[in-house]
């Protein structure tokens, strides 16, 4: 029980933090911000990792975990790279100015 009561506190505080993090966003950054936040939501890769590690020799579970990890990393790596590609175009302008 202790984990869950702590976890509910964590959930509450995390949500409040998330609500406060973004205030005013310039329209220019809507797309990159969405894409960046999207990459972060691939954090479920941690859950996939835990699943694989704890599954021992259970082959179906290993496969499910591995596929899940693959999906998550596709999300994470693709998301961060594509965000960086977008943002690189903005910063390039700045240095040249």
């Amino acid at each position: 029980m202790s984990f869950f009561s702590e976890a509910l506190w964590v959930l509450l505080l995390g949500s409040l933090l998330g609500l406060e993090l973004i205030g005013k966003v310039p329209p220019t950054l809507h797309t990159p911000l969405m894409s960046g936040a999207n990459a972060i939501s691939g954090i479920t890769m941690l859950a996939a990792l835990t699943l694989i590690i704890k599954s021992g020799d259970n082959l179906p579970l290993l496969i499910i975990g591995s596929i899940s990890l693959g999906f998550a990393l596709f999300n994470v790596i693709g998301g961060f790279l594509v965000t960086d590609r977008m943002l690189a175009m903005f910063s390039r302008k700045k240095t040249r100015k």
Partner: protein
Amino acid sequence: MTFIAPIKFAIDLLAVLLLALGIKGLSKVRSAREANRLAAIAMMLAAFGVLLNSQGTIGISINSWIWIICGTLIGGLLGALTAKRVPMTAMPEIVALFNGCGGMSSLLVALGVALFPSSESSDGIVGELIRNFSIVVSLFVGAITFSGSIVAMAKLQGWLSTPSWTQSKARHFFNIFCAVLASIGGIYLLIDGKNGLFLILIASSLLGVGVTLPIGGADMPVVISLLNSYSGVAAAAAGFVVGSQLLIVAGAMVGAAGLILTQVMCDGMNRSLVSVLFGGALGASSASSGGGGGEYTNITSCSPEECALSLEAAERVVIVPGYGLAVAQAQHTLREVTRVLENADIEVTYAIHPVAGRMPGHMNVLLAEADVPYEQLKEMDIINPEFPATDVVLVLGANDVVNPQAKTDQSSPLYGMPVLDVQEARTVFVVKRGMSAGYSGIKNDLFDLPNTSMVFGDAKKVLGDLLLELKELGVGSKG
């Protein structure tokens, strides 16, 4: 091995801090790129923390390592390839695709835990209930995120159109039916932890499709942003399932921040979230009510040559880029045209409507890709008072965002949407493929005005012709 737990704890704390700073930094132009890297580092740290902790406590079998490496390599490589290859114009689809995969990942974790429950956990009856509840949430939200995102992607790519039944009341019944089925499955799963699993999966996947399919292309970015928020919720639920606080914080942060971003985007488009989700496509509702319809009476069309002559004589030119420019991938040709004009000492600025392009901020990215200086992009509120002092406005593939109806006609469905006042300029050229209506399916009064001329054709081709004409006229070739 007692020192591993505190190290893991410190790594987790650091990762959460960096993630929060990352999300915060991404909302400011100056810090955005570093913030993105910071968040990426945080994710690596977090993964490292999990591996270190597991290796130190229960140990990771060779078998597990093999599967971890397989999943990492395949997913990571595909992600990297996709991110490098995809053209900038396809950005909305690709974000939807990535997002759907995140949802799928949470779903699979919950599925794995539900199918093969571990015997070690004994949190009592309440703990068991909470765990089953998290599995239900993770499956439900994960499935909606996945199917919704894939539908969103397919619609944006043009693979799927909007079937007519989705515009009728029937879709509400369909969605409610799916939601009820999913709830029944959820209750079954809560009670015995296994039955109802596939009922939830199928019903919530269908619900994701049913909710996303009726939504029109213009509103799709809002939906993607909302689904992005859902995938955060799914991640937090997966955190409860596997017992990871880091996952819960990160998921909750993304979920909440995504919600705020969705709201911000809605405000920019002057749409409410409720009308996006339940109102159906803008076009269908207006077509049936007949509002804002009518025939064009006074269309003037002209050739690129005439357009070039007007541009040559102008001192101040404003470009209004829109969706059509993005679709035609004409941003580079546009940049060449504006370079020629700039060489002839003609002042060129770009008027960026908040929802120009295929999603908010997309046009800025596309123009930045084509090397347009950041300072030349002007936001709507800044450029609007400048239109009366402008000689030529070139509207490229934009339609609804320059429709004066939004300010003058109270019966128009567009009424109240912020628009660019291009009709105030001396001459307006509208480059458009044909007389078809925009997203909203509403007649554009701008096209009937005496100072407006239409240049028909694909944006890229027209701009190419324009470039040739300008060169023939010797514009901008003095230096």
